[in-house]
């Protein structure tokens, strides 16, 4: 194939993680770039980057169930919350006011994923019975019911308006949450978060990429494209819907635990329908059924929130306080998400990934228009 990298002649190569050497090269360049940038980042940009990386893990999870397996889920906020609270409870101070077990990160991080996955399995039976829109309602119901229990189980979650400290960022005695030297390089706490987030994202993204190009991933796509046909060729709907929900919730649990670890505090009312919509927006804006799209979407949405924050200082009719002014920044943010979702749905259903493909094809075909 030397000299004709675009020519792909067998399935194995078509399904490879990096289909061409160019892709691999760009990936390496980007990885090195992200690390180099990370070394020079200011604290708040690093924290934003860390949040974006971990949010991308959550978005990949949602994309697995919605993008690949075609099961619409508006319940992602519930699973994120479950992860965040599991981590907080397992890590919490055993002698404190709230229930806590004082466990280490290597216990609570997988546990956060597993507890969320178990909840996903419990929700899955509804997905065998229901299709499409009814399923959207059920997952929406999960968010409301979850929200209620997060508020009411005060000895675990701290209760509405009070909350509890999130899990502490200590891995094998290594303090992620303190400034200090790593391999002789001085890093701020936020920079450590950033590198840790990138590492987690790398691992989870590769796992997901491998999952979707395996037998399971093909089964997901079959269920999504035509569930009856899938069943007839021997794909068990029950089994693969369960797998999809469990894995998706696992990703959400991990993401929830880590995002609130960065924030340092969990409050029960954070896990509402708006959070779910934010993740749906990441998937739809980034690109349905693409891993790189999920990452782009997560980065885009995370940075967008921050930008609205910053811009609100300059635009006169947007006030920074929670109330007053013509519009508050929270309202602008909500409206912007809504508008972006609508815009992408109508104009570019493939999302940012689709835009990128268009740009790439334009330059590939240059000087011809197509």
């Amino acid at each position, binding site marked *: 194939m030397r000299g004709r990298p675009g020519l792909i002649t067998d399935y194995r190569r078509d399904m490879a993680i990096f289909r061409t050497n160019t892709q691999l090269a760009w990936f390496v360049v980007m990885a090195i770039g992200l690390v180099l940038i990370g070394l020079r980042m200011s604290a708040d940009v690093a924290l934003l980057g860390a949040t974006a990386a971990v949010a991308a893990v959550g978005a990949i999870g949602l994309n697995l169930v919605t993008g690949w397996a075609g099961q619409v889920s508006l319940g992602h906020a519930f699973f994120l919350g479950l992860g965040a609270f599991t981590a907080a409870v397992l890590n919490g101070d055993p002698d404190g006011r709230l229930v806590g077990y004082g466990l280490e990160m290597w216990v609570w991080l997988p546990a956060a994923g597993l507890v969320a996955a178990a909840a996903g399995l419990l929700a899955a039976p*509804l997905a065998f019975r*229901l299709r499409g829109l009814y399923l959207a309602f059920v997952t*929406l119901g999960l968010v409301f019911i979850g929200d209620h229990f997060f508020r009411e189980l005060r000895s675990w979650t701290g209760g509405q308006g009070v909350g509890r400290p999130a899990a502490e960022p200590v891995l094998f005695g290594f303090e992620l949450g303190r400034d200090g030297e790593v391999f002789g390089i001085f890093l701020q706490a936020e920079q450590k978060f950033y590198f840790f987030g990138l590492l987690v994202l790398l691992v989870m993204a590769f796992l997901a990429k491998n999952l979707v190009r395996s037998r399971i991933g093909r089964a997901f796509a079959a269920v999504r494209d035509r569930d009856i046909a899938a069943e007839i060729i021997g794909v068990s709907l029950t089994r693969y819907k369960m797998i999809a929900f469990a894995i998706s919730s696992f990703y959400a649990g991990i993401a929830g635990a880590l995002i609130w670890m960065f924030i340092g505090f969990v409050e029960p009312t954070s896990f509402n329908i708006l959070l779910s*919509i934010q993740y749906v927006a990441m998937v739809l804006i980034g690109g349905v059924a693409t891993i790189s799209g999920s990452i782009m979407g997560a980065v885009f949405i995370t940075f967008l929130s921050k930008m609205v924050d910053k811009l609100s200082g300059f635009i006169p009719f947007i006030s920074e306080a929670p*109330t007053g002014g*013509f519009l508050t920044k929270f309202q602008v943010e909500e409206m912007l998400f*809504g508008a972006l979702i609508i815009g992408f749905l109508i104009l570019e*259903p493939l999302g940012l990934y689709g835009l990128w493909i268009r740009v790439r094809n334009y330059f590939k075909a240059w000087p011809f228009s197509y």
Partner: protein
Amino acid sequence: MTQFLQATINGIAVGSIYALLALGFVIIYKSTQVLSFAQQGLTVLGAFWVVYFSNVLDLNFWIALPLALILSAAVGIGIERVMLRPMVGKPVFSVAILTIGLNIVLLVIAFDLIGVNIRSLGDPWGLKSISIGDLTISHKDLATIVTAAIVVSILLAFFRFSRFGLAMRAVAADQEVALAQGVRVTRVNAAAWAIAAVLATLAGVFLGAGTGLAPAVGTRAIRALPAAVIGGLDSIAGAIVGGLLIGLIEAYMVTYQSEYLGFLGANFASVVAWVLMFLVLLVRPSGLFGTVEVERV
């Protein structure tokens, strides 16, 4: 026994509000195949128009209400024309997400217009009530039940006997065939949104009557969604039954839950609608009266 009867009356009153909202939802779904998550926004915005006409412009409530209903209908038609019509033929889920976005926009506008204070609707019922034996029935609840019954009967008669109602039923049965028969489907779709907006406004008025228009009106309006789903998304009767069912079970939960099911936490009544929806859907995946989806290969 008194307690039980009292809860039942309260439940029917709240249930008829849910029924009105769920009805709007079902009418939109039947005629346009759009799942509208925007009912909540329409409710709050509609109630605000009443506040505006009766409080800000200082009109009599009975003049303010019809004005608000007309304005809401216009808003409904406008939404259909501007946002929904370009989406005809797009995937159902995309349109549903669009209505979620629309809902956010409507709520932001409505709450911004309302401001931070609780605004009185200027309704004539206030917090007055009548007593029959040990039972207390507020004027507001009576008005709710009576109005809902009248409105629902008018709507059913409209669908059953009027020419335009027939057109709406035809579109609900099969949009393309209706189109081929000369029914103006676009007009039917606009009418569906107008009716839904009017119903939502009425619901908003009764939710806010007496206590005033506050964000709580919005959070209660959401619970009409499970009501519509429980009844079956495409069943008018189902919407009414679903609404009443949820109203009743909420009222019973408020009355008895702290005593018998205290471990579920205070305020469980606010989510019992969703739990009921889970249970109903597990047994009947298309709701109580919804058309069962037939799979053809």
